[in-house]
């Protein structure tokens, strides 16, 4: 196989460049006066080289199966090369794989595969006590490290650690899902924060699904309280109800305040207490995974669960991301029929006057602003 490939490669090279470079190089060297006799010999050698390449080509063709495109008799057009049987072979391969994989023993296909939590996150309807138990959501910290405010979430003690009641976890998680989907439905900006090692993928995935923002590196203190300084260089845009960007607001956006999130989901509140404090100062609701040693008053909607288990965090982030996805889908469906689920922002710029590709019809109609003060809580 490898040998054949090199022959094809070299054969193509030889076949593609038989005469051009040769004659060009000769033309620079050959004297014009001596041309007639030289041309005879040149012609002869050209013929020889062509004969050689032709024989090489025929050798190459013998080894491989050439796919000549079929020509349709009626239209005299060459068929697409993709119709050479590749699609059929691929579908045959998939059929064969599905058949042979199921032979031998009968095995449960629902077993846990770590990557599936990131590629196919669970839905809010998939929240069961079995899922939470298997994800180690019930494992709290040493009893001496507890925060007594969490006593209502604790089921008991086993082997020196507190066990979180999974019924509480499930109920709080479902409530958080409802909050996330509600905010997304009303066009709110959700920020997913998870700064521990390994939490980046699930945070990004959740933000993608919910149409929000993600943060997996350190939160810069003052990003909300001192947003003008820290996030002042970030680009903002004005979109309509169908999330299409509207041009012509650059000047006005430069004067406006920096964006603040409408909801913050924090997967490790113990490390991000500064961010949660800033959210509190700016009346931004927060959702947080509260372990037995965390302070539940730091967040608006606590989810009592194990924040040290990556699997548990991925399940929670996945489920909240799916809830955001559902909310976004509902909002877009409503927008398609003309129902706007939020109070649009009022902006100064009058687009009917501007000349560059602007939407006609008033400045303050159907424009979704980029400020959180538009009643998005």
């Amino acid at each position: 196989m490898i040998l054949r490939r090199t022959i094809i490669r070299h054969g193509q090279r030889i076949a593609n460049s038989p005469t051009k470079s040769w004659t060009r190089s000769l033309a620079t060297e050959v004297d014009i006066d001596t041309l007639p006799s030289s041309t005879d010999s040149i012609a002869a050698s050209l013929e020889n080289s062509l004969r050689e390449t032709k024989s090489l080509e025929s050798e190459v063709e013998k080894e491989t199966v050439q796919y000549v495109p079929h020509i349709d008799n009626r239209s005299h057009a060459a068929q697409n090369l993709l119709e050479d049987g590749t699609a059929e072979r691929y579908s045959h391969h998939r059929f064969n794989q599905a058949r042979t994989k199921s032979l031998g023993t009968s095995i449960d296909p629902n077993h846990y595969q770590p990557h599936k939590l990131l590629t196919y996150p669970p839905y809010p309807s998939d929240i069961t006590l079995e899922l939470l138990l298997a994800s180690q959501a019930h494992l709290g910290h040493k009893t001496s490290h507890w925060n007594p405010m969490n006593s209502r979430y604790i089921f008991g003690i086993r082997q020196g650690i507190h066990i979180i009641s999974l019924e509480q976890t499930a109920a709080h998680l479902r409530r958080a899902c409802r909050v996330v989907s509600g905010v997304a439905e009303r066009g709110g900006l959700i920020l997913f924060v998870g700064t521990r090692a390994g939490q980046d993928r699930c945070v990004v995935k959740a933000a993608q699904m919910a149409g929000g923002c993600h943060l997996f590196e350190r939160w810069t203190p003052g990003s909300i309280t001192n947003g003008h300084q820290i996030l002042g260089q970030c680009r903002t845009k004005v979109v309509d109800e169908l999330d299409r960007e509207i041009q012509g607001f650059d000047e006005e956006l430069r004067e406006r305040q920096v964006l603040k999130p409408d909801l913050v989901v924090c997967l490790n509140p113990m490390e991000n207490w500064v961010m949660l404090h800033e959210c509190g100062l700016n009346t931004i609701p927060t959702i947080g995974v509260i372990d037995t040693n965390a302070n539940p008053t730091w967040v608006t909607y606590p989810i009592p669960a194990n924040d040290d288990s990556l699997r548990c965090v991925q399940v929670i982030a996945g489920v909240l991301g799916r809830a955001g996805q559902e909310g976004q889908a509902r909002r877009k469906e409503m927008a398609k029929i003309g129902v706007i689920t939020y109070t649009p922002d009022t902006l100064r710029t009058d687009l009917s006057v501007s000349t560059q590709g602007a939407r006609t019809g008033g400045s303050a109609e159907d424009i979704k602003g980029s400020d959180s003060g538009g009643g998005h809580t």
Partner: protein
Amino acid sequence: MILSPLSRQQTALRICRPLIRTQDLYNPKTQRRRIHKLPQLGHAGAFQRDGIPGMLSPEGYDMAWNQYQGHLVDRLNRLTAGTPLENSTTHDLILAHARQPNAASLFNHASMAWSNHQFFSTLSPDPPKMSPHLTSKINDSFSSPESLKQTFIATANAMFGPGFVWLVRHKYRNDYLMENEFSILTTYIAGSPLPGAHYRRQEQDHNTMMAAGSFGSASLFPGKESKIAYGGADIDILLGVNTWQHVWLMDHGVGGKKSFLEGWWKAIDWDVVESNWHSTTGKERNAENRRSYPLGRVGDVGRRRQTPAEGVY
């Protein structure tokens, strides 16, 4: 005597001691979840009652399938339980361990389980005849179905020792050289016909065929080895027969291999064989386009399901 009723009571108490010790009831070693289970055959009920006419009696079927396949399933569970491989399918175990001599036991049991299941999946109590399409394809390679039968049975008979004999279809063949579409493949002992496990195909008896001087560049016929790259998915496995003695010994006796093979030929379900081939006739191609083949996505927690949520982990 006054004492004797008491002693009788004590002996009665001793007899009534429970057979299972309480410490074993909660011992994780005895309470292990079985991940591999015995697969369900389509005609299991009929086979259980009447056996396979001409080929196996109900007891013979029980030995060859229920007991032997159950034994393989049990051994696979023991070999993989508690390891990261415990959720792998048999097919994946075969491909992963074909080149690992240290995992020979795991490969052997997985390969036997796969091959035995493939063998039983092509049997039927009331088998249909070969379809015209398949007959014409067989005629191209073997000149007639009768000739195929003779070749098949002769090959299986000639194999000394346990193994499997397969009917395979070559996907990538050189039409210029007029290579056959179908051919017969033998795998000795626990060799696997799967393309990815070619390292352990074991298609020849080394004592007779692969002796020194019979292969390599200095042999009598050099260059006979396949030029297809290793690992290439070059064959479809359509049909196979298990020639291990435990399958036919009970019903056909020590010298009854040939009569077993003759009986087996009559029990082959040719529709299943054709569906294994994934025939691309017009009707079937349309049917295939309507089907969807999931690739490892069955039972995902996050996938939208029509049925109620199954166990999620």
